[in-house]
Structure formats: C-alpha cells, structure tokens
C-alpha cells in the first residue's frame, strides 16, 4: 500500500488488517505515555485546502503519537492565497523531504492527481464530493466494535447524499464488508445516476425515512443509522424549501429516535447541525457513537499512517 486515495484501493483483507492495527492503536490512547516510536524520523505534512477541525487534528495527533514530525499547511496563509498552483505548492512542500502527505482539497480527484506528482505517500483526507476513505474506515470500524461483524447487517445512511464524499466512501466500505446498505435522501439530494450505481454496487435507495427506520415495506430492521451533514457550503441552489421542511422529512428527530431499538448505534461524521439533520435528543442519546467515532478516527489514522510509512518505503506492505 503506497497511497490511500479511495476505499476501492483496499482489498477486504487490507481493511480488516487496518481494523486490527487500529484496535492495538486504540489501547495507546489510554496509556500514560501516548507515544510509539514506529514513525520516528518520518515527516508528515497535513495540507488542508478546506476547513477542518477533527480530521486535521486527528491526523496531526495520530502522526505525533507515532513519533512522526507533523507539519500543517492550510490554504489560508499559504502561498496558494498568493496564486500559487496546487502542483507548485505540493512540489515545494515535498522538496523539503516529506514522507507522507495528507491532503484535503475541494476538487474531486485532487488527491489522485497529487499522488502522480510526488514520491511521498498520499492520504486522501477528503477530495471534493468524491471520497473520504479514512472517515469510511473509522465509521465501519466503530460499527464493527458495536455490532461484531458487519456481515449481513443493515445500515441506513441518511441525508445530503449528492454533496457527500463520506457517503460515497462509506457505501463502498460497508458493502465490501458484507453490510446491507440503504441510503435515504430527498429526491433533490439523491445523486443523479444513482439507480445504475446502486444496482451494480448492491445497495438500496429510499425517499421515505420513516419506512426505513420502522423496518416497514421492503426494508427490514436497521442495525445502525448514519446521519450525514447538510453541506450548505457546497449547495449552490435550493435543494429544499426550508431547513424546517428538511428536518420534518429527513432529520433524526425525537419521534424518529423512538422508532429505533435502544442498541442501534447512531453515527454522524460531524460537524453536526443540531436541530437540522439531527436533534439534540439523538445526538446526545446513549446510543449515539459520535464521540466514539472521533477516538476511533484517531486509531484508524494511526493505523493508516503506520501501514503507509512504518516499513521500507521502497518495499510496500507485506
């Protein structure tokens, strides 16, 4: 494994291998000395061309706990704001002897493009509306810790599918691990062309959240619920009449929470729009795993950096 650009790059065994490593890394968080020497002497650069709190700090801490030197570069305050091209910025940073490049960029495919320019290992930390592989890995890892195996389990993904890279990566990851996925969105936020894709990839689509949560119609009971953020910053048009109307149709409200069994985990990749896609009752419920996703994310990102950067960089993964 040289880069992590897409969940699609990972074989099922590699995903499960990352989960095993992540489980070991999880233990480090409870130690007094939160430090492993595995990446001593390696340099990791976080290049974030979009705002981020949890992903960037999570990659930063993950790198630091593995003893790598971590540097953050953000678009604001970098040469990019002076008009430098992405290629020049990336090549300049890599000329400083960087081993790992964690990149988030608003353009879909940016991470893949960058990986073709540089020798460093590239980790896609979100490219536009395309993919966010470490988020999918940490979501699946969190669910696996709650549900045991994901094989045959039914996961509902609800929200702004059109603009969601989290959804795109998650569908691939969950179906690869044997889960049954139903995606729910209002028609305006259902990606165009999802019909042939869902048929090929083997997941279901629905416009009716209540029916899915109730396990009615053709749907059976859900084993996990994954809410997505309504991404106002990516919305150029009017996708729903009002926030209130979105909440009524597709928000995880107190009423909908009562349709779920008390042990059904509720995920949200954050940041949450409380009161819009998720009510406070659901976000703070005992079955909400939102904060656990954050600590899982740290473990997964440690595992990813370890697998990409710990061994012989010329040799790849055994």
């Amino acid at each position, binding site marked *: *494994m040289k880069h992590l650009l897409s969940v699609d790059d990972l074989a099922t065994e590699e995903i499960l*291998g990352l989960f*095993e*490593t992540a*489980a*070991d890394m999880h*233990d480090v968080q409870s*130690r*007094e*000395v939160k*430090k*492993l*020497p*595995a990446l001593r*002497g390696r340099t990791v650069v976080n290049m974030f061309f979009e705002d981020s709190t949890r992903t960037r700090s999570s990659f930063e801490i993950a790198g630091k706990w*593995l003893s790598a030197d971590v540097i953050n570069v953000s678009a604001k305050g970098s040469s990019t704001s002076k008009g430098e091209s992405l290629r020049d910025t990336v090549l300049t940073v890599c000329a400083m002897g960087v081993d790992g490049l964690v990149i988030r960029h608003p353009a879909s495919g940016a991470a893949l493009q960058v990986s073709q320019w540089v020798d460093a290992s590239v980790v896609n930390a979100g490219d536009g509306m395309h993919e966010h592989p470490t988020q999918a890995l940490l979501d699946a890892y969190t669910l696996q810790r709650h549900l045991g195996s994901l094989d045959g389990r039914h996961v509902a993904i609800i929200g702004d599918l059109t603009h969601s890279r989290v959804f795109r990566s998650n569908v691939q990851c969950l179906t690869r691990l044997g889960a049954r996925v139903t995606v729910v969105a209002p028609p305006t936020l259902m990606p165009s062309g999802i019909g042939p894709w869902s048929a090929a990839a083997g997941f279901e689509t629905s416009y009716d959240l209540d029916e899915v949560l109730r396990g009615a119609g053709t749907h059976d009971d859900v084993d996990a619920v994954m809410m997505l953020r309504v991404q106002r910053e990516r919305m150029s048009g009017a996708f729903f009449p009002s926030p209130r109307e979105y909440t009524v149709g597709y928000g995880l409200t107190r009423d909908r929470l009562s349709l779920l069994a008390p042990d059904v985990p509720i995920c949200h990749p954050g940041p949450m729009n409380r009161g819009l896609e998720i009510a406070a009752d659901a976000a703070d419920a005992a079955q909400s795993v939102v904060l656990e996703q954050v600590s899982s994310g740290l473990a997964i990102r440690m595992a990813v950096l*370890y*697998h*990409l950067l*710990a*061994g*012989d*960089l010329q*040799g*790849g*993964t*055994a």
Partner: protein
Amino acid sequence: MPATEQTGPERGDRTVLDARDISRALTRISHELLERNKGATDLVLLGLHTRGVPLAKRIADKIAAVEGAPVAVGELDVTMYRDDLRSQPTRRAHKTALPPGGIDRKVVVLVDDVLFSGRTIRAALDALADLGRPSAVRLAVLVDRGHRELPIRADHVGKNLPSALAERVSVRLAEVDGSDEVTIS
C-alpha cells in the same frame, strides 16, 4: 522473531526438545522464578509475541498450581520498537495487554521462545519503559541459541542450545502450531 521459522518438521530436522522436555523445562523455570522472587507476589509474566505469549500462560499456570493463587500474566508486542522496522515491508502489529494491576513497582518477567541476537529483548525493554516502571525486569526463554549482538542475557533458560549461525532453530507450540517441539536444522 528471526530465530523461529514457522516450518514444519522436515527431513534433516533434529528434535532437541519434545513435548515432555518442554513441559519439564517450563516447570523448572516456574520453580526458579518462585525461588528467586520468594513467592508469586508482585510477579507479572509478559509473553512476547508470538510464541512467548502461550509460554507465559503455561508458566503462570504452573506457578498458580504450586502457589495456589493466580499470577498476573499479559502480552507484549514490540513490533513498533524494533530496530529493523524500516528496513522491511510493514509488519503487522499485535496486541499489547497488561494485567489489570499494571507493571509499576512489579517484577516483570519477559517470556520468549528463543533468545538469539537479543534485539527483540532490547525492543521489549524500550516498550516497557513506555508502559510503566517495574521494580525489576527479568528474562525467561525456552531456548538460548547464542549469537548475541547486544549485551543481553537471560535469567532463566529452558535449554542452552549452541548452534551455528546458518542453522535454524524452530519452536513449535500446541497453541500456535498444533504440537510441542523444538527442532534444529
């Protein structure tokens, strides 16, 4: 662990310890540990992955049978601390599990199958330093085959097995490999 090849018995393999020899060696090590430590209080056995883990459990069982009380036992993975980490393809890490009481102010006994270059034990000592501060660290191994590359020695040895560098010493344990045997080839 470079000294433990996971090959089955082949022609040309010479068995140096069979299942009963291994059991006797572990029994002796258990008694030595008890004698040296004057009992099992504050003793923590940490097995090194892969085959040190079942060995530590066996020694703990034997000590518990003698003392009539359970002994703290855990497992230690040193992958991240190895000095050859970056000269090889990425190795899969294993679980590190300390007993509930931790290792602070305890006598930690590292347990491994084969003592060879000493580099695994060097890594284990570094790993221990990140996990706590034992009052003492001892080393128990089933086989000492010589060829040390670092100033490290074992406190308790099942069998000293002088070997040539080119020879392979293979430890097979029932928990991992299905049967108990130490061979040299």
